């Protein structure tokens, strides 16, 4: 090992090798020049600013003609130090930070983080059932949204814009419900240590039930567009293959692992939030390719809709009630409500702390500014995110802020598979491989 090793420097450091800077249009001239010089091997950068890289991913390709002989991913262009920032904020504020990691599946991070904090506090069993159902509801809506983006942008990158627009229209329906419940479409900060920020708004259950057929319609339309599409089949089938042993050696989880036939899903293997009480299947495939992953993502959306329907039934049955732990030393004091000017603190709560109870004001102030102490120790909490196993390692020094918060983003780990998937294939298949890994660079780089 040497500290001089470069991850993002030029691949070829030979001064005799000519270097060209190409921006698409003059590519043929460079290719002609290379032919004239008798060079077969070209090293090419794809990204970091490339429409198919789901953010800012740099892929270094060594190509011979159209064949990729070596592919390497360079990441770090979206590193924002979220984990470091979380060490300087209270445990509750941490939610607002980690939700911005994988911004396509915001509430996945929130859920993993909050379950971790609750394990540290030892209050896992105190979370009200209503909060757990709302968490499952949000996690599944997020999963549908994330899969729709994966499938949609994957199609868009192959030139099938309609796949993208259809998927995004269906995703918008999930956002409508998410927005009505949490106040925001993405980056929700809705799931909090101890529960969730607020319960269902008026008519919430009906709204969820009305959404389900709309999303289903979008999924059906998407399925019609894709499943018998000869171009899509030609582009995805037998492309970016990765078998079970390769997946195991690279720690791949999520739809990529399930496309090899292993039905590994933490919602079944290690249930959290009461997932063991929901009725759903874990779709798998056996063809190991990009097509199988796309089909699995579509099937998972249908399964998630089944869970969402069950959540609606349960929420109806549970009725009104608390969505936060009872412990007033942990539960976030503020209550939100929707006023004429949008969402904000509820007038009743403001009236209570400003006009009625000095102690309530002090309590509110202490919890919001200082936060709560979390007993010293460390925990690891893993959940099944849309993209694979999302792990959170939390260390507390007994104070009001995390000593360390580390996220194992599934995209970060799965992106390691790009070389295996892309090498030996065509340059155009690299795009398919990236889309089938479905990482979001915000989560990869954190």
């Amino acid at each position: 090992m040497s500290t001089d090793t470069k991850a993002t420097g030029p691949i070829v450091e030979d001064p005799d090798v000519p270097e060209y800077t190409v921006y698409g249009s003059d590519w043929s001239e460079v290719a002609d020049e290379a032919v004239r010089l008798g060079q077969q091997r070209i090293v090419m950068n794809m990204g970091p600013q490339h429409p198919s890289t789901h953010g800012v991913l740099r892929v270094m390709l060594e190509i011979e003609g159209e064949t990729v002989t070596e592919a390497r991913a360079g990441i770090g262009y979206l590193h924002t130090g979220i984990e470091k920032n979380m060490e300087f904020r209270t445990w509750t504020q941490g939610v607002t930070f980690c939700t911005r990691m994988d911004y396509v599946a915001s509430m996945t991070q929130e859920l993993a983080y909050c379950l971790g904090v609750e394990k540290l506090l030892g209050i896992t069993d105190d979370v009200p059932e209503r909060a757990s159902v709302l968490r499952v509801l949000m996690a599944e809506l997020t999963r549908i949204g994330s899969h729709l983006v994966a499938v949609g942008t994957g199609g868009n990158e192959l030139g099938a814009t309609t796949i993208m627009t259809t998927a995004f229209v269906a995703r918008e329906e999930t956002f409508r419900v998410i927005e009505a419940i949490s106040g925001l479409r993405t980056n929700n900060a809705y799931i909090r240590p101890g529960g969730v920020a607020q319960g269902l708004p008026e008519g919430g259950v009906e709204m969820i039930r009305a959404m389900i057929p709309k999303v289903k319609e979008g999924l059906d339309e998407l399925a019609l567009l894709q499943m018998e599409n000869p171009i899509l089949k030609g582009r995805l089938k037998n492309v970016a293959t990765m078998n079970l042993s390769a997946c195991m050696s690279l720690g791949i989880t999520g739809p990529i692992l399930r496309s090899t036939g292993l039905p590994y899903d933490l919602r079944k293997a290690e249930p959290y939030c009461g997932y063991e009480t929901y009725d759903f299947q874990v779709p798998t495939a056996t063809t190991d390719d990009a097509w199988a992953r796309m089909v699995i993502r579509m099937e998972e959306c249908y399964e998630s809709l089944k869970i969402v329907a069950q959540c609606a039934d349960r929420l109806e049955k549970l009725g009104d009630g608390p969505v936060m732990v009872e412990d007033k030393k942990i539960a976030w004091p503020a209550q939100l409500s929707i006023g004429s000017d949008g969402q904000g603190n509820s007038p009743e709560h403001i009236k209570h702390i400003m006009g009625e109870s000095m102690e309530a004001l002090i309590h509110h102030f202490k919890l919001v500014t200082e936060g709560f102490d979390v007993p010293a120790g460390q925990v690891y909490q893993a959940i099944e995110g849309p993209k694979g196993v999302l792990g959170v390692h939390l260390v507390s020094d007994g104070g009001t802020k995390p000593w360390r918060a580390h996220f194992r983003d599934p995209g970060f780990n799965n992106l390691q598979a790009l070389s295996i998937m892309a090498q030996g294939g065509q340059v155009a298949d690299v795009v398919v491989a990236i889309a089938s890994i479905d990482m979001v660079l915000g989560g990869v780089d954190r």
Partner: protein
Amino acid sequence: MTDDKNLETVAPAGREPLTLINVREGLFGAKGDTSGFDGLIKAVQMPGASERPYGEWFDGVVDILTELLGDDVDAAIEYVVVDRGELTLYIAREHLLAVAQHLRDDQDLRFEMCLGVSGVHYPADTGRELHAVYPMQSITHNRRLRLEVAVPDGDSHIPSITSVYPMNNWHERETWDFFGIIFDGHPSLARIEMPDDWVGHPQRKDYPLGGIPVEYKGAEVPSPDERRQYR
């Protein structure tokens, strides 16, 4: 933040190899506080070594590992902690590769996946400042345990386990990048998140968060890590 004088008072010689997470002074992180709390010194430690029986499947795993490691077991497993329903094995770095190999290959252990390596910096834990934490996942037996390796700051070498768990390649690069832990034997231990020419390892506690003060109507709010805050 912490000076040696205080450390001696709170970390007596010959202590158990408990992880000293932090030594906290005062209540508000500011000196000269009128509250009287600024003289407060509190050592915060990780939960200590657990005694048998560890409960659940934990005893079985430790037994198998003990058998497989043979004579090395006392040197390899420093101590075992069971806390919040999770098993942590503190491993001496010389034996990390052997332990990882056993965890992966033995059919009764079979931890197929290492979920990465998370670094933690404990500046107050003299001689064991940098910790590498490996969560291991067994799909076959549906179990998870944690390996923890502690190394001194001046000699932060840990053998790379990429030969056993190739999936740890990027994770080890990340921990090198953020904490400066050198994973010996890694195929290409380059920075991964920070630029190649970056100086320092940003997740360490002695590395400032940075940021600029915000000025509003003549008053200045310091950057987040400079603010007076509760601890």
